[in-house]
């Protein structure tokens, strides 16, 4: 009888351990990136603009969101790219903040130390705001920045972007793109990807728990709980202030120096 209990305990441990490994999964590593401010459309992390510009952009961003049924134009200034290229950084930031509903998003990014600018256009706006158009805006930004200072330059370009996306709602050149982007690729949570299996798994775990308590007085469970406590460190909480609409970018847009 004792032999049976031991083997049962062993098998239960093995199975619970395997299940736990599946649940915890692989934490996808993300570069250190800021979260959006509560204004969402205006994020002057490098503190190069004054508050009037900030209010203007935040208001225009809100009204553009309404007039385009979910299009989001976001301004971000950062002090430095810290080694990434501006293309990598802006794509990662765009996708982290999930700018734009139905992928209708634009990110206008300035990196002050490297003096690089980029307009990153989400899948949904690729036909509306082309690479060439983006580049023209960036060249214009550079000139305005020289002539009239950064506040004027940023506000003008931001306004231009909003006008473009408000005026040309339906022109999407590559409609097939982006439709595949509905699944999450990260090694993330087992529970989120397989709700049915997860429910079944929960029932199984409960049954095993009961068996364990009967057979080994809960010793196995205790050991596993200790393991879980040690290894669960979920990074990057707080999607509270993020009001991104779930959009993604495929890397469209253009970069330039200023």
């Amino acid at each position, binding site marked *: 009888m004792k032999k049976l209990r031991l083997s049962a305990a062993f098998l239960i441990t093995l199975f619970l351990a395997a299940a736990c490994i599946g649940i915890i999964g692989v934490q996808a590593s993300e570069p250190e990136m800021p979260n959006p401010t509560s204004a969402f459309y205006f994020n002057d992390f490098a503190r190069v603009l004054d508050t009037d510009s900030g209010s203007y952009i935040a208001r225009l961003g809100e009204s553009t969101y309404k007039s385009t049924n979910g299009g989001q134009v976001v301004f971000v200034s950062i002090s430095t790219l810290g080694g990434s290229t501006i293309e990598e950084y802006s794509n990662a930031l765009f996708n982290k903040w999930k700018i734009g509903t139905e992928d209708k998003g634009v990110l206008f990014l300035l990196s002050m130390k490297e003096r690089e600018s980029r307009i990153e256009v989400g899948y949904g706006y690729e036909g509306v705001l082309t690479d060439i158009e983006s580049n023209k805006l960036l060249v214009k930004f550079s000139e305005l920045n020289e002539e009239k200072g950064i506040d004027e330059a940023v506000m003008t370009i931001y306004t231009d972007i909003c006008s473009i996306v408000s005026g040309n709602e339906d022109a999407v050149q590559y409609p097939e793109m982006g439709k595949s982007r509905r*699944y999450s690729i*990260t090694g993330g949570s087992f529970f989120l990807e397989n709700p049915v299996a997860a429910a079944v798994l929960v029932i199984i775990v409960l049954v095993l728990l009961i068996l364990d308590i009967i057979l080994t007085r809960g010793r196995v469970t205790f050991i596993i709980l200790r393991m879980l406590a040690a290894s669960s460190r979920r990074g990057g909480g707080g999607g509270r202030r993020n009001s991104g609409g779930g959009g993604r970018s*495929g890397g469209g847009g*253009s970069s330039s120096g200023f």
Partner: protein
Amino acid sequence: MKNKTWIIIIGIVVLLAVYVIGVQRSLVNLSEEINASWGDVEIQYQRRADLIPNIVETVKAQAIKEQEIFTQIAEARARLSGAANIQDKIDANAEVTSVLGRLLAIAESYPELKQNQGFQDLRIQLEGTENRIAVARKYYNDSVKSYNKKIKVFPTNIAAGILGYKDEFPYIQAEEGAEKAPEVKF
């Protein structure tokens, strides 16, 4: 007494079956993710291929006599249309990347070409397309990596082996210089 043993054995078999089913479901998701992300890569490759005739025409219109590069471009395009499976397409597009790189390098020594508005616009479009290829490539490689991890890690590798999921999707290597497309600053 014997009944108890049977119950435990059956219980374990059921648990294992459910586990394998769970693994199968996620492997299906992961391999479909690979197919979808490869589709995006192909779209961007096609977008770039579509730009090539315009670029060639613009360069030729400036009466630039560099026949060798045009021949190489024609060969690269032929190889593109002949590519059938994923690996062939990856290789053919790597050749396109290096041929285009050479063309742009040649264009550097022709000031009339560099100042030509049409050529400048094409360079911007090309740079944008190369960036899109880089982004799509990254998603594809990430999805292949997730899939490979799942089929190789214990204990899911056992289930994967039983179900017949193999390490069969190639990674796309980033070609030299393709990561940083030439900055367009005039």
